[in-house]
């Protein structure tokens, strides 16, 4: 990597200003994991399919394996590390734990952020809207039923706040 062009990428992650000097080809997911040490965001398929690397960029979900880090420069990012506050789980996290919406947990960070994005846009999603919202997140363990249950519960809990 020595000698290759590097550019500075500045973002705000989970409310904190962060920056690093990286090669332009650095993927956003590697920037988060390797440069910023935020390893909660996972790399699954690395081919824009599975959604394990889903994060919020400027309020919208993206697959962070399919973005070069410089493209996110100046952006506001939320990763799974930014969901809980002072040790208290976010209602979406709580619902996934409560409903057993995970088994191995590898896909969970991505699913949490896809759920949060859905509920931010649509507080009372229908079953069909929930399914559409997580169509870009693959889970190889659960068979999705408890994930759907968790999202319905999270919608209910967030609606009360």
């Amino acid at each position, binding site marked *: 990597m020595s000698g*290759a*062009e590097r*550019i500075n990428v500045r973002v705000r992650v989970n409310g904190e200003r962060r920056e690093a000097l990286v*090669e*332009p*080809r650095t*993927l956003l997911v590697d920037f988060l994991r390797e440069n910023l040490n935020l390893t909660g965001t996972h790399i699954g398929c*690395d*081919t*824009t*399919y*599975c*959604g394990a690397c*889903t994060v919020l960029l400027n309020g*919208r*979900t*993206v*697959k962070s394996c*399919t*973005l*070069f880090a*410089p*493209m996110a*420069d100046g952006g506001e990012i939320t990763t799974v590390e930014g969901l809980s506050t002072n040790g208290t789980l976010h209602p979406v996290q709580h619902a996934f734990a409560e409903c057993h919406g995970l088994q191995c947990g590898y896909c969970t960070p991505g699913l949490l952020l*896809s759920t949060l*994005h*859905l509920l931010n846009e649509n507080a009372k999603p229908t079953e*069909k809207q929930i*399914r*559409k*919202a997580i*169509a*870009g*997140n693959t889970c190889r363990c659960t068979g*999705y039923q408890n994930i759907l249950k968790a999202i319905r519960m999270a919608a209910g809990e967030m609606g009360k706040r």
Partner: protein
Amino acid sequence: MYAHPFSYHRAKSLREATELLQQLGEESRVIAGGQSLIPLMKMRLARPSALIDINFIPGLSEIKNENGELRFGALARHTDIETSEHVAAIPILHDCAAGIADVQVRNQGTIGGSLAEADPSGDWGATLLTLETSVVCAGPQGERTVKLEEFFKDAYTTVLGREELVREVVVKKPPRNTGGAYLAFKRSAPVYATASAAVQLTLDDKNTCKDIRIVLGCVGLTAIRAKQAETELRNKRIDEQSIKRAADAAREAAEPQSDMRGSADYKRTLVKALVKRAIAIAVRRARGEQVEAGHEYVGR
């Protein structure tokens, strides 16, 4: 997976983007949403030496509704189009935008990038070819407007010159009593469709088809206009028999390849079924009915 190293250039204006294309030469490429280009680069199927990022150019993602036209800035994301109130008046555009890949990809992918990429399995080509669509291309000598029919030349190939890029996509609003539908069949949300059918038709009384366009996606090097299928319906009554004749003609017009998504024969059969259903939905919509349509996959 890592792309081959490249130099990164951020354009602040369209003019700067075309200047960079001139300066950086043959091996440079424009990047918009990156949802096709980045996977290609990671698989090393594309290895540009320089990328010109146009995402920071202001005002390039607007959707305007003026003078009987919808004008999409090149950077309008599929999600912006899906949720645009202007687009609701042309249901076929919503069908397409709302089902491309998955939420994450729709949040990032752009209409301009999709057309410029000219992937034979792209959704926008087939959809927009059923409408009066033109592409505004910006280059060092200024702008030119190209009809979409003339924009696509071959798989992954458009009329865009080396130093040109898409600025805007312009769609003329269809006349009254027009309806359309885009149906795409895929095995799961994030993948490309196996086959797709786009139909846009105008009725002159309740049963006669005044005009029609039928375009097939994923079953040729570019989207294919099924002209014989259109002839089966133009100026004719739309009934079960004529729809069947059109669907049969569409099946013949398809030029699919056997691949991991299915055999050529399977895709032809799929085309026939999709065209048949798309016509039926288009007719209902032309009569003012609200009907849901779009991409279909397991677990929907």
